[in-house]
């Protein structure tokens, strides 16, 4: 991380600290002098946005926890107390609830960008693994956070999800009892979920630091998917990319705050404004939108144990993508066939998301005789097929387009790159 640092302490205090703990040069290397490919497009801003959202979630969450009561009899009322009586409580809660959704939006785009441009390939496998670990932790954190208001969807969502663990061979029952802290979803469940919901974001923060560390060793991938070769191919992180990221964060904040101020309940479910009641099951139990594709997969598979395995497998399979993809070329820009399969994968993910919240027995978009279940099954097959068949096979047979010699040549043309290189050399010798 500090490898790129050009920081030289000037003050005595700076020198004193640098000798004992070189934290300033570490930060300098990470966020100031770090060389970044000059050709990054706006799909590369979502990492910074996700980081921003994590901070928003932690700050609003800490303040919310000061007013929230994690008890089955009081949780619902304490959330309403936050909404009605706590100064700016409504703003904190709506920001936290919509912030969770927008955090997932940013992370989904971030992951899909990595898939499109092949960012997970060597030497960035560990970077990808750490990212997937963050995503997995986010899923757990988001799920437990949704349980805390103790509304109907909180309670029944928790019941459905925890019951999934029953299918684990031999110890399934014990895992479920451990999650519940008893023999049903009840006060102990709420208490441990609250405790873990407070803990996990800091674990995420720790993994984010590792993720950034693992980024700064090989550096960022770029839309061309070729490594920078000369100084000419990169720009300093600051001010070029800090400014670009900040601009993007402000744009993203506009979307976030549109929802917070003008449509705060759009991404929630009306049933969660009804107190949890273990005797009344809601007609449709629907998880938060960011789990819907996986919920569609679990429902598409007829056997419960296999369905649950499929759901977790759908997430876990993402971890091994660097080893499933056999193509030597990273960027989809030069992989015409992969590009099609990628867009179909994205479309399929959205389709599964839609299917996760409609009744499986209904007709698909009103087409007579075609049930949602059937389409879910086709979608599930494509989802797994993409990873276990398309990625390995396509890399071996696909005819890729020729790669440019360097980033600067692709940006400036051969002549332009030469001219710029000469100019840079002249400037350097002058200095």
């Amino acid at each position, binding site marked *: 991380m500090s490898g790129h640092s050009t920081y030289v302490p000037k003050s005595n205090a700076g020198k004193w600290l640098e000798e004992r703990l070189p934290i300033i040069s570490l930060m300098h290397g990470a966020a100031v002098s770090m060389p970044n490919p*000059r*050709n*990054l497009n706006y799909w590369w801003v979502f990492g910074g946005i996700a980081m921003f959202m994590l901070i928003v979630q932690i700050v609003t969450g800490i303040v919310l926890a000061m007013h929230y009561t994690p008890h089955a009899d009081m949780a619902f*009322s304490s959330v*309403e107390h936050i*909404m*009605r009586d706590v100064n700016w409580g*409504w*703003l904190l809660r*709506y920001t936290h609830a919509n912030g969770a959704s927008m955090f997932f939006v940013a992370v989904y785009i971030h992951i899909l960008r990595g898939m499109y441009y092949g960012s997970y390939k060597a030497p960035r496998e560990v970077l990808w693994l750490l990212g997937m670990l963050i995503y997995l932790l986010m899923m757990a954190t988001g799920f437990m956070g949704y349980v805390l208001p103790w509304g109907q969807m909180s309670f029944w969502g928790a019941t459905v999800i925890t019951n999934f663990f029953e299918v684990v061979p031999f110890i399934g029952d014990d895992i479920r009892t451990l999650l519940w802290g008893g023999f049903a979803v009840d006060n102990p469940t709420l208490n441990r979920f609250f405790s873990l919901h407070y803990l996990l974001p800091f674990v995420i923060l720790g993994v984010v630091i590792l993720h950034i560390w693992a980024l700064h060793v090989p550096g960022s991938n770029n839309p061309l998917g070729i490594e920078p070769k000369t100084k000419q191919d990169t*720009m300093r992180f600051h*001010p*070029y990319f800090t*400014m*670009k990221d*900040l*601009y993007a964060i*402000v*744009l993203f*904040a*506009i979307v976030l*705050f*549109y929802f*917070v*101020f*003008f*449509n*705060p*309940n*759009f991404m929630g*479910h*009306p*049933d*969660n*404004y*009804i107190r949890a009641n273990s005797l009344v099951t809601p007609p*449709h139990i*629907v998880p938060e*939108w960011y789990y819907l594709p996986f919920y569609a997969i679990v429902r598409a598979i007829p056997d419960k144990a296999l369905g649950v395995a499929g759901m977790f497998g759908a997430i876990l399979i993402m971890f091994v993508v660097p080893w499933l993809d056999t193509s030597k070329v990273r960027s989809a820009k030069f992989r*015409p*066939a992969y*590009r*099609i399969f990628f*867009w*179909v994968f*994205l*479309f399929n993910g*959205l*389709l599964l*998301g*839609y299917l996760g*919240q409609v009744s499986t027995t209904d007709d698909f*978009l009103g087409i007579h005789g075609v049930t949602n279940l059937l389409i879910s099954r086709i979608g599930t097959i494509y989802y797994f097929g993409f990873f276990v068949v398309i990625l390995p096979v396509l890399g071996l047979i696909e005819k890729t387009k020729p790669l440019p010699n360097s980033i600067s040549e692709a*940006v*400036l043309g051969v002549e*332009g790159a030469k001219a710029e290189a000469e100019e840079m050399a002249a400037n350097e010798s002058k200095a």
Partner: protein
Amino acid sequence: MHNLTKNITSLAKKSALVLALASSFATPAFAAGGAISGGPEFKHVDWSWAGVFGTFDRAQLQRGYQVYKEVCASCHAMELVKFRNLSEAGGPEFSKAQVKVLAAEYEIEDGPDAEGEMFMRSRKPKDALPSPFANDNAAKASNGGALPPDLSLIAKSRGHFSFKDMFMGRDGLSGGPNYIYNLLVGYEDEVPEYITKYYDHKNEEGLKADPDYTESHFELGDSNFNNFFPGYKLAMAMPLDDDSVEYSDGTKATLAQQAEDVSTFLMWAAEPKMEIRKSIGIRVLLFLIILAGLMYAVKRRIWENVRH
């Protein structure tokens, strides 16, 4: 091959967008009007509080409170709403003195006093609106086994969020109050023709397909028919009719007027900070848009001489 690739890619992009839009129709809760077609149309009321700049009409909120108090409150509690809320900004904005009088109409158990005895006192602005029943079981016992739901959050816990509500600051909530409005005006004395016709048709088709088909009919039983309640059978009898209350501000108390007023009141009760939320939101978004413009200018200036 090349062109095909390009076409398919752009098609996939377009369909992904269309699907993204379609899946935003996240509409699990209610299909307004139910599954049977031919009934009266679900009305979307033109609420004063809808939209980015929408605010509540104070007089309407006060009338709505009157309807709640004189009609709904005999069965439905509103335990999250306190009398003091009625005088707070963004609500019905009764004066503090009026609220004191409104609260004092009801008693509440307090205590224990110095002797350890519980005692009754009149309610103060800090107290919640009174609940008509001591507990859920008492409520059920008085209502033929059906529990009248608490109305504090009813406007947010009913109805569906439609895609249309995503834009224009429609709050994603107008489904709820619209549902309440339609429910209140949607009663019928007898099972209407579109329902009986539907079952006649279903039975006819069923018999055609299978001679052993068992006919089914719509049985109302002890319930009341409502065009907009899921399943059409509602335990609650028609609560409002023309002139169920007498408005002191001279507004004619038609059924539709009362339904609109009380729906608006319930919307406020579920979302008491709506007005301040929107007014701050406009300023926050304006600030962010200007900030984004400045950020963009700085970013362009920094990148001016860099081709990328």
